[in-house]
């Protein structure tokens, strides 16, 4: 099965497959998104360790898998995230300030301080909210695809999940219905080798995730998830096929989580150092940088400029986020009912009275 791995760039950035026809600025945009994600990871983990952020999830090592697949979507398509796709939100137009405001849960957080950090949601970019229960998002993507098909919209859905989610009932339900209803849905599994502390070998007896598509009657593809061009190409073909009525696809992006599961996890407790080192030599950003350099799209000046700009943006957003107040207390009563029912109104008034008297 490993022989079936689709690859355009090898670990050293050499072209081994067919490079998708992307313009130079698009290629550079993909690079910038990966670098932004990596820089955010580094800075936010630092803040988390300083106690300034409650929680963070890094995507280090998995940048190509999610940025490449997101870039293969069209604007009207719907993306259903897992929780390790920061680049997806940014690629779909979410401003960096909104990203950071969400982590701080302040007044300008689009999710109004109601979510854990990293549980972004971006309606303007057709990206659903992150939901922590593993795999629960998979049937949603099937349903969105089915609805799009039913309404005759020229739209497909794409959903992210990890290797662990493939053992969940929702994976089975979501993919079975997608097969039966022939929905325009693309299922992207980022197989990063570990479901928190559970290694892939203990997740399933099958050699690959891709072969699980056989059980649902549609194609499964296995791609080098650290090769952004291969991920882009495979996803684009799947999304086009879905929109053209060709039905769903399961894509297995073989990648590796170089960081921890989350800021609450210590992977040195369960995984061997050599494994980490081995995967560090296959870094998705390094190989793409080498490719871009070879193409004449990238050099040290470009790198410096990009990094400086991102750093400025991050620091500006952080400075602003710190000073923004928390969402107003009464906002917790909003957004469920179009008109607030009397019992909630009563609870709200009671709370506000108490808040006032305790000041």
């Amino acid at each position, binding site marked *: 099965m490993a022989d079936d791995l689709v690859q355009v760039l090898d670990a050293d950035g050499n072209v081994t497959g067919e490079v998708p026809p992307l313009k130079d600025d698009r290629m550079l945009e993909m690079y910038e998104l990966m670098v932004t994600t990596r820089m955010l990871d580094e800075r936010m983990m630092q803040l988390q360790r300083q106690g300034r952020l409650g929680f963070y999830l890094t995507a280090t090592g998995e940048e190509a898998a999610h940025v490449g697949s997101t870039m293969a979507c069209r604007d009207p398509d719907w993306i259903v995230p897992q929780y390790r796709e920061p680049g997806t939100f940014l690629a779909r137009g979410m401003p960096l300030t909104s990203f950071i405001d969400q982590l701080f849960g302040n007044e300008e957080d689009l999710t109004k301080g109601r979510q854990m950090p990293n549980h972004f949601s971006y309606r303007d970019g057709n990206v659903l909210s992150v939901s922590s229960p593993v795999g629960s998002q998979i049937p949603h993507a099937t349903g969105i695809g089915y609805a799009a098909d039913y309404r005759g919209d020229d739209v497909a859905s794409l959903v992210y999940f990890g290797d662990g989610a493939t053992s969940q*009932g929702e994976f089975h339900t979501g993919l*079975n219905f997608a097969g*039966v209803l*022939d929905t325009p849905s693309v299922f992207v599994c980022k197989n990063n080798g570990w479901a928190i502390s559970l290694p892939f070998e*203990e997740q399933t*007896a*099958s050699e690959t995730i891709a072969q699980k598509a056989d*059980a*649902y009657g549609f194609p499964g593809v296995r791609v080098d998830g650290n090769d952004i061009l291969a991920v882009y190409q495979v996803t684009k073909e799947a999304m086009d096929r879905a929109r053209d009525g060709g039905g769903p696809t399961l894509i297995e992006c073989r990648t590796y989580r170089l960081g921890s599961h989350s800021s609450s996890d210590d992977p040195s407790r369960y995984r061997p150092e050599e494994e980490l080192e081995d995967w560090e030599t296959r870094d998705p950003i390094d190989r793409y940088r080498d490719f871009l350099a070879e193409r004449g799209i990238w050099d040290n000046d470009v790198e410096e400029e990009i990094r400086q700009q991102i750093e400025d943006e991050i620091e500006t957003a952080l400075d602003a986020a710190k000073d923004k107040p928390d969402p107003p207390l009464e906002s917790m009563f909003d957004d469920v009912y179009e008109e607030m029912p009397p019992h909630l109104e009563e609870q709200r008034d009671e709370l506000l009275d108490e808040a006032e008297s305790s000041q």
Partner: protein
Amino acid sequence: METLQHLDADGTLVGPEPELSDETMVEVMEAMVTIRTLDERMMALQRQGRVGFYGQARGQEAAVASAVPLTEDDWVWPALREGGIALTRGYTIEQYLHHLFGTVEAVEKGRSMPCHYSDKEVNQVSFSSCIGNHLPQAVGAAYAADYKGRDQVMMAYLGDGATSEPDFHYAMNFGALWEAPCVLFCQNNQWSISVPFEQQTATDTIAEKGVAYDVPSVRIDGNDVFAVHEAARDAVQRARDGHGPTLIESVTYRRGGHSSSDDPDRYRSDEELERWRRRDPIDRFRTYLSQRGLWDEEREAAFVASVESTIDDAIEAAEAAPKPPIESMFTDVHAEMPPHIQEQLELLEAEQEDG
């Protein structure tokens, strides 16, 4: 995927000489005829209002051959249509009737719906109506048996509809990971109540679903006793030898309603029914056994008469037997009855007395 067949629809042997002894073949035939006779009588009783509910196995009787390779220590985890398998393992027609009538003599003490047979004596757990939920239980029991070093195989039955349930997914995944000694025997009878197989899954077969879990699978003619037996024998042996689960897709057809509460005329065609009637598992096996001189019409008539008479006696016994005492609903959950249950029991008894 190929469908294994040894005995074709006309009763002609198209595979190797069967390994089953003459005696076992006759036993399988008798078991199949018993099930069909019971089904006819029980459906009549249900229509007369004497039994509340019934699920017949008409057309799927050859599945009993899958239990032939099981030992007394192995366990059966049934779906709705495996009451006949309990009968081949020592459960009696009288118990069967007590169960359907929910009498004081019923193993389940009147607590289960009809057709939810169960008997610890023959290692058959209760069917529970929730589709597929017994599959992870079977895998868990297999894992436990293996862990404890017991030589036990878990034989779990399911329908085509159950393969869409998350429980099927869990069972296959964990079964394969743990190499649990179990067999998943899927009776693909083409209909999940009114959902046809084509709307159940986008795959052509159930068997190919094994690929997702690296579970070996086989597709067989489920109306062919020899194919059923061979597939089950190999799978049970594999499990016993420590090589984990097998998925068997037994292609068959439910000729009756899903249950006595169902009217299949509403959703399926007469032509389809007729097509499958011509592939009847009993007819073809009768033809084969007759050619071998092991069975004939006379013998069948005598056998049916004896089953009928056993059924008559069993009906009489079940109808005469009292219902379980009302207080029995409070027993068998706690080793010692807790005070709040005790209180409820006394309240009920007082009310009964007043009433």
